[in-house]
């Protein structure tokens, strides 16, 4: 196994532990720890925050080499995808439509 393999399989093992801990802890230990309202509301916001925090740098990356913000087809595709979802409430249409915009915009940007 290469170092990269160890890294990837390490991540997979840790994510498996995540699954077991979050899905099964209460099943196994029962009701010994009550979940307070404060904890529950933290739990409500945390996943949304984590997902948002992953997405934003993917769409609008900052680069020190390029000297600032990189605005390209990714942002445009994402905006159109949000619009498609808003209009249709269909996640698959959103993903497919976003990809199509991504390809078209990239092709145009390459010509320019």
């Amino acid at each position, binding site marked *: 196994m290469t170092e990269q393999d160890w890294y990837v399989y390490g991540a997979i093992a840790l994510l498996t532990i995540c*699954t077991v801990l979050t899905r099964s802890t209460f099943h196994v230990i029962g009701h010994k720890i009550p979940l307070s309202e404060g904890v529950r509301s933290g739990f409500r916001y945390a996943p949304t925050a984590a997902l948002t*925090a992953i997405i934003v740098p993917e769409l609008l990356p900052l680069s020190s080499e390029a000297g600032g913000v990189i605005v390209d087809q990714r942002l445009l595709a994402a905006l159109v995808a949000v619009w498609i979802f808003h209009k249709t409430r269909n996640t698959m249409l959103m993903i497919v439509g976003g990809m199509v915009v991504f390809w078209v915009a990239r092709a145009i940007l390459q010509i320019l």
Partner: protein
Amino acid sequence: MKTESAIKKAALLEGLRVVRPALIATFTWGLVTGVAMVKSGLTEAAALWMTFIVYAGSAQLTSLPLIATGAPLWLIFAAGFIVNLRFVIFSAALAPYFQKEKWYKRLAYGFFTTDTSFVLFMPKYGDAKERGTLEQRWFFLGMIIPGWFAWQISSVLGIVLGAMVPTEWSLEFAAVLALMAITIPLANSRPMLSCMMITGAVAWVTQGLPLRLGLLVSVIAGIVSGIWAEKRYRKRRS
């Protein structure tokens, strides 16, 4: 009086009937996740391991950009854990229904719990007088077994297809779009929206921090702003 096996069979079929419309969504998600895993740089073997032992689509999709940029393992663990926190609430709510089982069976019921199975289970048995009946367990099995097959078959198919698609198609971007498709419907209240906006702003500014620590900083900022906005919003309405 129905026999035990008749109860099991009826409950299993009822679970299957209830979950069937959701299986198409499960299937498409599995397909997208499968493609996303290989297109984000996982080998096919690693992607197969991931789908079979992690079995958590949103955590898998979250981890992909982190793995691709070589984020530290503890951060990948933290991000996966946070995205999965909803299952802690599910587990707390579902635990009473499986209390009579042995510990390893309870562990398994927990592991195979999905968003769909929870969402469909609670309206039916949430107010049940007796919790932990045979019928309830087999109804649950009737949902999670087909759900598991739909997810794994489509994921494997996605992994195979993903390996055939050329890299120039940049299908890893579909993983970002898929994450957006999970995230946007969550913006269903004002506090949630402010949580997302603050998180987004902080995440954008802090993305240059080493080891992708900006992720942690922005999540904390997002949670605090969400709770704060919720309190303010409630005060104003009362």
